[in-house]
């Protein structure tokens, strides 16, 4: 157990000193500083921006969607990122093109993460990936009413294993046809 700062409650001065010395040495290992300002704020809440809201949920369970037809166009992401990489843009153009040709189709965009990081955070991150994918398709002219999102976080890996090869395949947004 590493102490980062001494406690003033220890009744034993000797231990107090030892802990304090230990704390000075262990401080270096505790991680890198990310942001030195120590405060700042995240913008406060407000009214929901409806035009960018996720589309209505389809009646059918997204588990039953057809993920095979557009499987060549699965969008991959970098670690802890939801940015659409340049390499992935042609896939999204292909999906938009498919939807232009198949006017009756609706899609569900399933966001996934690799296994690193915590469960709940990864659900949020997977959702963010699905939404980034949807936003890009919106920009390509796909109607918001034809798209919905679901995040599975780290729960549905495409590849098993705890290595970079598996993680790379698992950080994805897969596009399914609602049926």
């Amino acid at each position, binding site marked *: 157990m590493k102490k980062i700062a001494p406690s003033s409650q220890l009744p034993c001065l000797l231990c107090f000193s030892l802990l304090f010395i230990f704390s000075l040495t262990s401080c270096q290992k505790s991680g890198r500083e990310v942001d030195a300002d120590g405060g700042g704020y995240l913008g406060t809440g407000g009214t929901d921006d409806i035009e960018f809201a996720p589309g209505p949920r389809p009646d059918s369970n997204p*588990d039953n969607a057809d993920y095979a037809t557009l499987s060549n166009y699965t969008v991959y992401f970098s670690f802890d990122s*939801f940015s659409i990489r340049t390499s992935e843009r042609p896939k999204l153009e292909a999906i938009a093109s498919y939807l232009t040709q198949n006017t009756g189709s609706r899609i569900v965009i399933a966001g996934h993460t690799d296994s690193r990081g915590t469960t709940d955070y990864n659900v949020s991150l997977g959702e963010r990936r699905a939404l980034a994918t949807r936003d890009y398709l919106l920009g390509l002219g796909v109607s918001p009413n034809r798209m919905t999102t679901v995040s599975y976080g780290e729960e549905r890996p495409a590849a098993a294993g705890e290595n970079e090869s598996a993680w790379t395949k698992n950080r994805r947004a897969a596009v399914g046809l609602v049926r």
Partner: protein
Amino acid sequence: MRTILLFLFTLQSLAVSTYSQASAEIRIEKGDLIPMTLLPMTGTTGSKVQPILENDLALTSAFEMVQAGAGGFEVSATVSPDSLQGILKTPQGKIVFTNSFTGDARSMAHQFADAIVEALTGIKGIATSKVAFISKQSGQKEVYMMDIDGHNLVQVTNDKSIALGPRFSYDNSKIAFTSYKSGFPDVWVIDLKQMKKTRIAYFPGANTSPAISPDGSTLALTLSKAGNTELYTMPAGGGDPTRLTKTRGTEATPTWSPDGRELIFVSDDRGSPQLFRIPASGGQAARLKTYASYSTEPDWSPDGKKLAYSIMEAGQSQIWMMNLGNTERTNLTTGGIAESPSWTRNSRHLIYAQSGRLYLLDSSSGRQVQLKTGISSCTQPTCSR
């Protein structure tokens, strides 16, 4: 040396205590082991209750069992099938308390254990606590609940989808969690008395990370209905959500201050997951400095003074604790992937998950014991208050 000095300190304090009840004067500081002798229990079911009590005391990591007459506090009891008469004495033979407990064998042992812990350490015992968690034993992630010693295990959900992030309400009557039963991540609340499950939040997008406020009236959660995952509060029984954040990033896992006035949550708005503190009624959020680039899973201690959280670094995850008064930070685990810290009611012990197993950690000493669950792939524990 430290232990001996403290023990002498303790004995000196005991000499001035009246033993009438748990008092600050017989509190033993920090994580020092308290010597104890458990005499063979008498009565018809004494031998049945004895190992239950022994295990309860071992779970606390606070006691050191010594031979009779070797300077330990002396525990004895007479047990019948429906009552336990327990006695705790000082090493000098003075009675600290005598008390009787009723219930089944396990319940009586747990109550006696908690009374002993409270009398000798000044903090609440946890033997009567419940632990809820996620297990993939059935092949799908479901919510389970058990006594902290691993007995009375029950499967709470049978949704056959994905259940995530169970959290007890402060009064222990409910568990909030996320389930994909509808196909989408929705927030559900289980009333434990009736085992009745109610879907509370099912907006378009993700509905996750629910935490019930200390007074039970409000749910904090994250929703993506506005087109981005954001932190919200909403009535605990369902209703209109109020948005607290507006970011380009991802928010997750809010935890309430015990007075219900503030929340600490995770946001990666600054580029990586960091901890932020915000008034529960809305306003500006201030970052809590953890000096780590990936900090998640905050859990506010019931006494309001400490925050447990996890830090991911170099492929590993460790549990840390921050004193919210002076921002002193303490690393509580080393090695492996330790996740999902959850305080017990005494704000000293916490439970966490590592490699599919659950551990009970004494934050005062760093000592820990593995909790028996009897099932595999256990994650995301939450402890009753």
